[in-house]
């Protein structure tokens, strides 16, 4: 097990263009499950590939277990990687796929079988060892890829969107399995995804990236409840946080904190909502509309309610936001600032 650290890591693919990864410094904790989260093109995969040694950084350092590994080839970094496509070797049986890293690392031959069976047993694919990858389902392929990664007990696990090729139903169970797997092996893992649900569910901490820049590194609670800037605030959460400009600050409130006035006690900010659309999603309702009156007249906002049956289209209702749930951001830097005296009316 080891800690991965990057220092001012930068990758510029084309000279004169914006970097894919810009000045990223981070440090994992021992045995932690760290998630790189960002939209496509945010540089999260490039960052992972640099850590793996598949991409050379333009500048900056990568350390694994305290040792600078910039000049080490992937094979010397003691890492294992699970690719988005799984990258199983199609001409080899499952057994040979899993044994390949052992062969490549010159592990004595008499240990191969024991180790392959251990890895396969851990992932419940002991019965598939003679099959070829093309004879496996998506979920089984993913497990083979994981078994191939775990078999030589790497110091660090790198996972590049390993669930994105699975259908929605399978994804939930594969996610759970992956969590259980991580708990049982306890290896430091870095997991790349664009799916905030995966990130929230699995990450010990989440690194939020956009355009190659780190926006925030924190636990799921921190990035959700205390977003560092407007990007994090809107990227996490579905529907995203409502943002409204008021003078020099941007005020943000989550849809689940924008509620009919009758339900809320304590210090609140009163607002009036003209309902324009309601969506019933089973366990909740998404109500969208525009604010009425005050400085924020006609501002589009969204509310998430457990019950919205009583709301009529085009009706105007009294809504409130609990004052303690409000977030404030600087208008020019988009960064989080402390609560200031904001005049709403």
């Amino acid at each position: 097990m080891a800690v991965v650290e990057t220092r001012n890591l930068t990758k510029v693919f084309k000279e004169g263009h914006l970097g894919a990864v810009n000045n990223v410094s981070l440090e994992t904790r021992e045995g932690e499950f760290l998630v790189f989260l960002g939209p496509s093109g945010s540089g999260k995969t490039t960052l992972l590939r640099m850590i793996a040694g598949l991409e050379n950084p333009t500048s900056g350092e990568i350390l694994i277990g305290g040792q600078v590994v910039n000049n080490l080839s992937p094979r010397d970094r003691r890492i294992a990687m699970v690719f988005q496509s799984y990258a199983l070797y199609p001409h080899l049986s499952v057994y040979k796929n899993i044994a390949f890293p052992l062969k490549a690392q010159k592990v004595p031959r008499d240990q191969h079988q024991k180790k392959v069976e251990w890895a396969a047993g851990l992932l419940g694919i002991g019965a598939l060892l003679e099959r070829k990858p093309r004879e496996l389902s998506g979920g089984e392929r993913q497990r083979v890829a994981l078994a191939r990664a775990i078999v030589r007990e790497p110091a660090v696990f790198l996972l590049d969107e390993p669930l994105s090729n699975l259908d929605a139903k399978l994804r939930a169970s594969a996610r759970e399995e992956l969590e259980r797997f991580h708990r049982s092996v306890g290896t430091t893992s870095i997991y790349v995804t664009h799916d905030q649900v995966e990130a929230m569910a699995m990450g010990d901490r989440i690194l939020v990236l956009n355009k190659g820049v780190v926006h925030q590194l924190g636990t799921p609670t921190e990035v959700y409840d205390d977003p560092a800037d407007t990007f994090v605030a809107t990227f996490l959460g579905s529907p995203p946080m409502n943002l409204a400009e008021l003078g020099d600050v941007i005020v943000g409130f989550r849809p689940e904190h924008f509620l009919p006035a009758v339900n809320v006690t304590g210090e609140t900010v009163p607002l009036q909502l003209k309902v324009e659309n309601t969506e019933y999603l089973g366990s909740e309702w998404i109500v969208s509309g525009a604010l009425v009156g005050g400085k924020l007249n006609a501002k589009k906002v969204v509310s998430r309610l457990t019950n919205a049956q009583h709301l009529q289209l085009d009706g105007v209702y009294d809504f409130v936001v609990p004052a303690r749930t409000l977030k404030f951001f600087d208008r020019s830097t988009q960064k989080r600032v402390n609560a200031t005296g904001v005049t709403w009316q």
Partner: protein
Amino acid sequence: MAVASARVKSVAAAQSPYLSTAMFAPAALYILLLVGGPFLLAIFYAFSDARIGNTELHYVGLENFHSILQSPSFRVAIRNSLVFTIGSQIVVLICANILAIALENSFRGRGIIRFLILLPWVAPISLGAIGWKWLLDSIYSVISWILVALHFYKPFNAPMWLGEPVLAMASVMLVHSWRIIPFSTVILLAGRTAIPKDIPEAASVDGAGFWRTQFQIVIPMMRPILSVAVLFGLIFTFTDLTVVYILTAGGPFDSTQTLPSLAFAMGIQGSDLAAGAAISLFLVPLLVILAYFMLRVARRSEVN
């Protein structure tokens, strides 16, 4: 692709039952006239005593085959054909693989180098062979001149590239390899590009070095396309006449005489059409086997 062509076929068939037949006819006709006709004629001649300039023709049974099998030059030609074909295919495979690896990743000037490598394939084979004949000439050879200038050999003592049996065979093989390499390179390059980048990357993360990645992952994955390159190469080489004929005409002392060049020498130059036809018929069983494997490879890659 298989799906697309099937759809095209069914659309065409729906328009008119004759359309697909009509589209297919020129190719079928071409093969029947230019391959089937001469093939039947060769079988016919092989059982006769046909000679150039002789209008009479008699059935002689297996006599031609009988006398060919007795002839020492025929046995030498079979051995030479195998050496020539297998030897140059080995050279081609090694060189084409190296070139394909080198050309896989982009670098400055890759386009020009690709073009230069492809040049021997697009140039007329006879012109290329004549060029090589001069390069390997016993008196004017540029290669010998360079070797002498570098003091590897004394003046007038350089090897006779086309004049000594072993060297002549080696020269013929290398020139033919030079000719086939571009073709194989292009096929192998396509095969390499078709392998998802993830897979060699996964191998390198798994701890494999360059050789292990090539020999245990990439090349086995290229097996279908590799066999296409090999089968085409074998057929091109086995049936080749031009390089041997221009460089050595089969000499010295039949040391580079292959089946096609022997058939040409006996049948056309020696006027013994019947013997030439019989010799070329010996090519058929070998080519049928190769064709069978080619069709199998083609069908398998269609399924995948």
